[in-house]
């Protein structure tokens, strides 16, 4: 028995060392950093330069606002679409199911750099295929990278394109875990298909959908590569600057580690807070 305990530590230790060095310690260290003024050597304790600045920095407020706008629009749209896709992909009537699944799941494997490049070309104001199609059906041309609203819409579309399949996979797996006899019983009770969806499928899927919401919230709070690459570093004029991008600038362009750490902790706190609110709203009655 004692031998076995020793074996357990043996199995655990290698990973734990890495985990402690590159995850636990940084979490602690970054909290400490968030109180230091790091623009001047030596670094010294001055939360006014980090947490204090956070409250009054208009650039931070702008990034926070943009992130929340994306969050409020993109997460519900994407989760609703993912649920719909999961249900439709699960339908017995669907033909060419393999191709259908491929269409929605393939973006999951496409890297950020690759899809950012394609989106930039597709949405090019003058020569992009999207504008050519829009004007082709008589609608006005959209200047995707010059208009703040259009740029924001572009980011939301891009993120939704990339991640909806990912969420649909998770929801689909939840869907397939619902035993078929539940639906058979409902059919015998003359419950129509749409009512079955709202009164059986959705309630049973709720925990999984909530899980997807939490994942998406955490993901959106950290949105970085899309505004960095697609809208060219948060353009136009900071209209798509997200918290993630703002942190990148502060941390790795200006090298203000203390301030960036305070931003990081704000992102974490917000992500956890919003997730908890979601879980609270979606809690089971009783």
């Amino acid at each position: 028995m004692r031998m076995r305990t020793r074996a357990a530590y043996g199995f655990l230790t290698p990973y734990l060392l890495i985990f402690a060095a590159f995850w636990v310690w940084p979490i602690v260290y970054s909290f400490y950093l968030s109180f230091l003024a790091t623009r001047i050597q030596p670094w010294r304790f001055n939360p006014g330069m980090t947490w204090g600045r956070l409250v009054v920095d208009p650039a931070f407020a702008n990034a926070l606002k943009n992130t929340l706008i994306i969050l409020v629009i993109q997460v519900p749209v994407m989760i609703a679409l993912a649920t719909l896709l999961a249900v439709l992909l699960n339908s017995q009537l669907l033909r060419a199911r393999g191709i259908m699944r491929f269409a929605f799941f393939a973006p999951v494997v496409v890297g950020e750099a690759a899809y950012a490049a394609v989106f930039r070309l597709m949405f090019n104001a003058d020569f992009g295929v999207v504008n050519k199609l829009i004007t082709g059906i008589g609608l006005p041309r959209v200047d995707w990278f010059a208009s703040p609203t259009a740029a924001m819409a572009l980011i939301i579309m891009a993120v939704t394109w990339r991640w909806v399949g990912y969420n649909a996979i998770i929801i689909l797996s939840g869907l397939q875990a619902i035993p078929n006899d539940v639906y058979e019983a409902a059919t015998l009770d003359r419950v129509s298909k749409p009512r079955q969806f709202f009164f059986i499928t959705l309630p049973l899927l709720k925990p999984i959908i909530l899980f997807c919401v939490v994942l998406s919230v955490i993901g959106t709070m950290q949105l970085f590569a899309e505004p960095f690459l697609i809208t060219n570093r948060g353009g136009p004029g900071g209209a798509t600057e997200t918290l993630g991008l703002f942190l990148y600038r502060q941390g790795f362009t200006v090298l203000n580690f203390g301030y960036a750490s305070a931003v990081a902790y704000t992102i974490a706190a917000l992500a956890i807070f919003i997730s908890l609110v979601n879980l609270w709203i979606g809690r089971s009655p009783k």
Partner: protein
Amino acid sequence: MRSKSVSTLRRSIALHAVMVPLAIVWLFPIWMMVVFSTMPENAIFSPNIHLIPSDRFWANFNVLQGDTNFLRAIFISVVVALVYTVLSVMLTSMAGWALARYAFIGKGMVLTIILGTLTLPYFVVVIPQFIMVARDFGLANTWFALIVPPLFNSLGVLFMRQSFSMMPADLFDAARVEGVREWRIFLFVAMPLARPTLAALSIILFLASWNNYLWPLLINNRPDMMTAPVALGSLIGLTKVSWGGIMVGAVLLTAPMIAVFILLQRHFIAGIAAGAVK
């Protein structure tokens, strides 16, 4: 009977009326990636719509290779993803095994810390990681910097722990009664039985490493140590650049993963879905 089949037909038509256009929209960017990669520069930026691939792929590739040594970047990405996957699978399955199958002091605490910090955004650690690796250790632009820090990922620990704890305990007790050492039980009984989980985990980890953008962007800025996504991203911001070449890079980055996805779809989907099972 008749009315039933009519309503089924109607439902089927409605279903496909929604799904077919949506699927086309979703496939469109990937298709356009291929189309762009084969087009000459002046055709990409022309008033006409081109939806059919042309024949300039190799020409564009040569331009890309001239802009940035993309083959070298691909090579680095492959090595990093492979080594990272192997190491992460090894480390996390050992840890998952310990947490699934042994009682020891501190187990509850380890699990709590892993689960508790899982929801924290990566941004919370990225700054100290950078300070540590780049400044304190001076290891920027090294293989170590690309491979080792991301090994903290606890996905495998939870994933493997779940897999191991679902196996019948008798199996391992039987081996113990036969005098098989603990690490051999792990290696020759537990690991072979976890093969489907290992496959799913490996695919997810490989993909994550292959597409990882932020960390390699921060830690390796020397052109000869850039991974493929970073090399590609560095071109996107430039003004005077070949977009056909960038698209070739995008295709080279994406095609292998699409192939993996098609070939190993089952494991792939299991890997993503497993995240929700915990």
